[in-house]
């Protein structure tokens, strides 16, 4: 599966993966937008159901690894409904700043409402932005997180370079993303789950099996642990490493701007 992902990334034409289908590069962004437009309002519920609540634990560890401190500026890219942003808001305090960025206005809309409900607004900025061309100054951010977002980005290398530019020297990037289960048995169970049960749940709850099938497929197309590590190094990040979580179903990659 990994070879396929790599060769596809290298393929020098104008198409790219949309789940298991190959589509025009230009079209992918629009199609990804379609997926998230259609799931935005039920996104949080589905997240909980799909992962059995475990995504909260993955995010909890991501927050710990960020080592966020009062006064820092944290950028959460593809931040969607603002899960991580709300937690960072407390950690950086009133002198700090959290930027919640996402390409999708519908997701940000839900995010903004949720942050207001949680009373976390004073230090949060909401910005509609594409990970591949971040509209922020060079060296302006202490930490960047991107959770379950990188696999949706068309040109991942471009996005990683854009993140490096925005980070201050010594700043860190954390990429939380589905990855490759470390055991074959878990891999099988997980396949079964994501191609049978996940779309079924999507149909039942969000009346949208296609979007959830896309999610399952895009997960399989995403580079595995070592490939992503290499991509981060190629983009110029230093001290890169990763932590497997839940048997490698998810991995948290970390890298620093030299």
């Amino acid at each position, binding site marked *: 599966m990994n070879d396929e992902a790599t060769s596809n990334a290298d393929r020098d034409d104008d198409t790219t993966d949309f789940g298991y289908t190959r589509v025009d590069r230009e079209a992918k962004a629009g199609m990804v937008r379609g997926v998230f437009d259609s799931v935005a309002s039920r996104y949080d519920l589905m997240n909980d159901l799909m*992962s*059995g*609540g*475990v995504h*909260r*634990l*993955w995010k*909890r*560890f991501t927050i*710990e*690894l960020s*080592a966020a*401190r009062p006064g820092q500026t944290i950028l959460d890219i593809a931040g969607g409904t603002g899960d991580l942003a709300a937690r960072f808001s407390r950690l950086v305090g009133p002198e700090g700043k959290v930027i919640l960025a996402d390409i999708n206005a519908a997701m940000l809309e839900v995010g903004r409402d949720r942050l207001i409900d949680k009373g976390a607004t004073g230090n949060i900025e909401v910005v509609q932005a594409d990970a591949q061309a971040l509209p922020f100054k060079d060296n302006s951010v202490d930490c960047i997180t991107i959770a379950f977002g990188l696999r949706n980005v068309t040109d991942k290398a471009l996005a990683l370079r854009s993140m490096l530019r925005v980070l201050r020297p010594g700043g860190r990037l954390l990429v939380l993303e589905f990855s490759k289960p470390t055991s074959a*048995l*878990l891999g*099988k*169970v*997980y396949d*079964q*789950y994501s191609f*049978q*049960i996940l779309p*079924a*749940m999507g*149909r*039942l709850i969000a009346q949208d099996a296609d979007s959830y099938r896309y999610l399952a497929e895009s997960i399989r197309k995403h580079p595995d642990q070592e490939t992503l590590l290499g991509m981060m190094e190629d983009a110029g990040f230093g001290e890169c490493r990763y*932590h*497997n*979580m*839940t*048997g490698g*179903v*998810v991995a*948290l990659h970390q890298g620093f701007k030299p």
Partner: protein
Amino acid sequence: MTQHDPALLSAALAGAEQALNQAISLAPHSHQELDAVSGTLLGIEVTTLDLTVYIEMVTGTDVRLMAHCERETDAFVRGTLEDFAALATSNDPAATLINSGIELEGSSASLITLQQVIARMEIDWEAPLVDILGDVAGHQIAEGLRRFFRWGEGARASLKRQVSEYLLEEGRLTPPKPELEHFYDAVQSVAMRVERAQNQVEKLLAKAAARGTSQ
């Protein structure tokens, strides 16, 4: 960093943190004591489990447990599980600390305050822990049940073996037996619910398809 699966460790810590904060909220007299050490960070390394946990006293009513922390600790203690068990239940923590095999770097003040607060409270550690642990292991296992086990006693025995192995090997945790029993039941019922939902979906799909062809 430890080699434990961070998701499992986070589950345990989230559960313990919830139990602790719940108990603290019900014990108003402890708020002042904890407030006095607020802002301090404790590191606890349990050598037997190859595990380091950080405890941050955020405010008088909020304690945070972490698996990873890069801030410098105000106190760092290292010892075996037995050492810490003795300390947790000790009536004279300062003496126990000196006489046990626990190594201490930094000031013992916050550690002793926390010990005293915890020792006085009745904390229900198990309920939130099992809740959250159930989520993790349940997530990893429930989906595969339908395919890999047939229902009935055989399935249950096999599931039991797998879960015990998982908990022992990956989590190096040994929850008490009744909790595990309860957990197996919960997993079984989740798996059955998933199965039922899937059957329903299939029926709906078949109906929709039938309607599609009859038009």
